[in-house]
């Protein structure tokens, strides 16, 4: 379903994304399509303020309005006078809609407001029906499970009427030179994620770092946001010779530079796994079952975020490590949440031996 009145008249377009960096990276190639298609329109992007460093360097929109994700409100505007500029079209780009984002979109003055009409783990069907009333156009997409990157193109095609094929964005052009001296050869490790219980247990990363140091002479560079500082601090404290802790010291675009210069990236289900794919760097990604299902006798997961479809990323470039459980596909509404202290079982049960073996496999094949 496309915008009923066509898109040629649109002079002011607002795009709203309230998700995290990894989702944003997967959307960049589709963002370029929006720029090309709406070349005469002024595009405003409303997205998390934590993306500012990157979003201000990307030329696919005219104006970036940083949002505080928790409140879904531009930090520069007080709540009382939060009336924002008029737009011809506002698109809520979230496939998994949330009450917060819907509420924000309803504050943007526009004759046409568009969103995806699909069940979301963030709201009940009744709530979805209620929130749909905020929109003038609802995009009904294929019910077939798709990777998020393909879904972004499906959304773009639905809005524009175009037939763009999914492809990866070349992220390297947005990287900024890392201001910290780096070793010649190193592994980039991102031990955190947006949710503590989705982090692979950090003591096992210590084992990985020490093994890679003793067998390959590789130093592991620890990266991540400020919220991961304790984890990286602990890894570094326990493997000081094998690690270089840059956690919290780099901007996003500098992090891309670190990834692009690394021999291997090891990450949880987080931004770094996506960035490694967009930069063409081999990576090991440890994922849980929240957004995945397991099919076939080889027990390989298929999911919304990882692994990438083979036609986009070779399976030899990224090794996905998972532990199959019958509760896969829970959207991380984990039934063990209150019973486990540190890590969701589907991630905890991935043995460190598998992580080390996968890292060695990629390092040896690159050599």
């Amino acid at each position, binding site marked *: 379903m496309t915008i009923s009145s066509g898109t040629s008249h649109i002079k002011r377009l607002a795009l709203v994304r309230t998700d995290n960096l990894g989702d944003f990276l997967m959307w960049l190639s589709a963002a370029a399509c929006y720029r090309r298609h709406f070349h005469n329109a002024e595009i405003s992007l409303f997205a998390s303020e934590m993306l500012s460093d990157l979003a201000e360097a990307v030329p696919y929109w005219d104006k970036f309005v940083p949002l505080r994700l928790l409140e879904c409100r531009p930090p520069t505007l007080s709540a009382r006078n939060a009336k924002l500029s008029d737009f011809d079209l506002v698109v809520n780009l979230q496939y998994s809609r949330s009450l917060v984002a819907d509420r924000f979109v309803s504050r943007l003055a526009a004759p046409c407001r568009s969103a995806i009409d699909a069940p979301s783990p963030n709201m009940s069907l009744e709530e979805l029906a209620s929130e749909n009333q905020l929109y003038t156009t609802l995009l009904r997409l294929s019910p077939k499970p798709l990777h998020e990157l393909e879904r972004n193109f499906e959304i773009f095609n639905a809005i524009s009427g175009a037939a763009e094929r999914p492809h990866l964005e070349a992220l390297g052009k947005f990287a900024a030179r890392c201001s910290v001296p780096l070793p010649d050869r190193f592994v980039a490790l991102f031990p955190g994620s947006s949710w503590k219980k989705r982090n692979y247990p950090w*003591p096992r990363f210590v084992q990985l770092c020490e093994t890679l140091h003793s067998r390959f002479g590789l130093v592991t560079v620890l990266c991540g946001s400020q919220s991961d500082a304790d984890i990286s601090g602990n890894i570094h404290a326990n493997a000081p010779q094998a690690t270089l802790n840059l956690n919290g010291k780099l901007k996003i675009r500098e992090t891309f530079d670190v990834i692009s210069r690394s021999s291997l990236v090891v990450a949880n289900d987080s931004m770094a796994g996506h960035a490694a794919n967009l930069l063409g760097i081999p990576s090991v990604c440890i994922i849980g079952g929240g957004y995945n299902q397991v099919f076939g006798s080889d027990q390989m997961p298929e999911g919304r975020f990882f692994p990438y479809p083979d036609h986009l990323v070779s399976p030899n470039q990224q090794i996905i490590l998972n532990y199959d459980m019958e509760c896969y596909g829970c959207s991380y509404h984990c039934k063990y949440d209150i019973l486990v202290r540190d890590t969701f079982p589907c991630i905890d*049960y991935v043995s460190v031996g598998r992580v080390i073996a996968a890292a060695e496999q990629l390092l040896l094949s690159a050599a």
Partner: protein
Amino acid sequence: MPTRFSQLLHLYLKGRAWLAAAQSSAMWNRPRDRLRAMYGGHSLRENAAALRHHLAPDKSPLGSLYKWAIQPLVRNLLPALTNDQSPLKKHAARLALSSVALLDRASPRLGWAAEAGVRAIQRRRRLHAAELPPAKLLLGPLKFVPHDTDLFSVFNHVAGEIYFGRRIYPIFSCPEARSANGQLKQFAYIDEACPNSWMEFFEPLAYASGDDLHQDIAKLSAMSSTSGHLAAPEFRHAKATMALYNRSDYQHWRWAVHNAVAHMIKPKRDILANIDAMLERMPGHRLGVHVCHPSHLFVQGKILLQHYFSKIDIILKRYPDSTIFLAADNDLAVAAFRYRYGSDRVLCHPGFIRQTVDDVLAWSYSLVQPKSDDMGFVGGIGFQTHYRIAAAGGGKEGIRNGKEAVTDVFTLAACDDFVCTASSFTLACAYLNPRQVQHFVSDGQD
């Protein structure tokens, strides 16, 4: 507006009703909720404080509506939003969110604020649910000093810390154990003449080839110590362990811990020889049974021998060639099992320390005196074997008792089926042999 107001009121009242139903239901008394109370760690007051910033009073008429309806609603539903996973409370939480959505239609300012508060709480819930690691937490090497409990509870703490990723070296010595615990009441497995009685039971731990640190008592003594507090709760707390047994991922858990731990801990050769000798006498299907002294009821519940028999009878129908290996700390259980299944079928390690039938009778007579407590202690004295030996200062009897416990557990772990109760033996067998089928006996129910 009137429609929305009435809808809001309806939702509010419905939410209150659901909450009342949830609070009054028996679910609050279930172990999971007690478990949450133990580890959940956040209070209603704390959550209310998180909201206060977002839910500032408003002087408009809508502010009054908010004060009257939304504020108490959100406040009352906070426990549902933060802690509980039960369907009733999830429903209540959804109602709260629906109310917020409705209010937003009436007043975006209030809607935003209210939902921001709810989101803040949800985020806080995620953060609090995960215990953040303290900065500069050293994984080792560390000496592991036992706390005052039975041998296999300590063993499970050791396993839990190894599974967490720590490099620990147990040191079971009189000075270390007494300086950490004071007078020992349960941990009987030390002897003044033995610098590290772990070595009497198990081979030294080695984390890499050539790692002989465990045998250097002087170096070990100088190290920082741990007693297993970083092990996950299921290794340490009986209630968390019980919750684990009921989790649908229990089998996955057993394999994960087995793969990380089982190859690390090996019994001494003389103990292995005893185990092998017993297993040779069990050529067919091996059925292990663990019977505790009845004063163990504070963990396992009121188990009767009949409860074991009914489980065993079912297994014997399926595997008629089974031999039963019985690990019991009292002769009463041995006699009862041999009477029912025959001396040829029921095997025990010979000569182990067990309470006599008279000891068990003496304990039961003591219970009619007004001095017994809910731990089965009478006049402050525990009646399980290790309590008695610990009270006598451990020594050679303590070492012997420890060797016998290790022999029993590793023999049980080698069995195909295990009829068991909630005990440290059961947990140890769970990860020592994840292929073993465990049949839980508790209070006469599965």
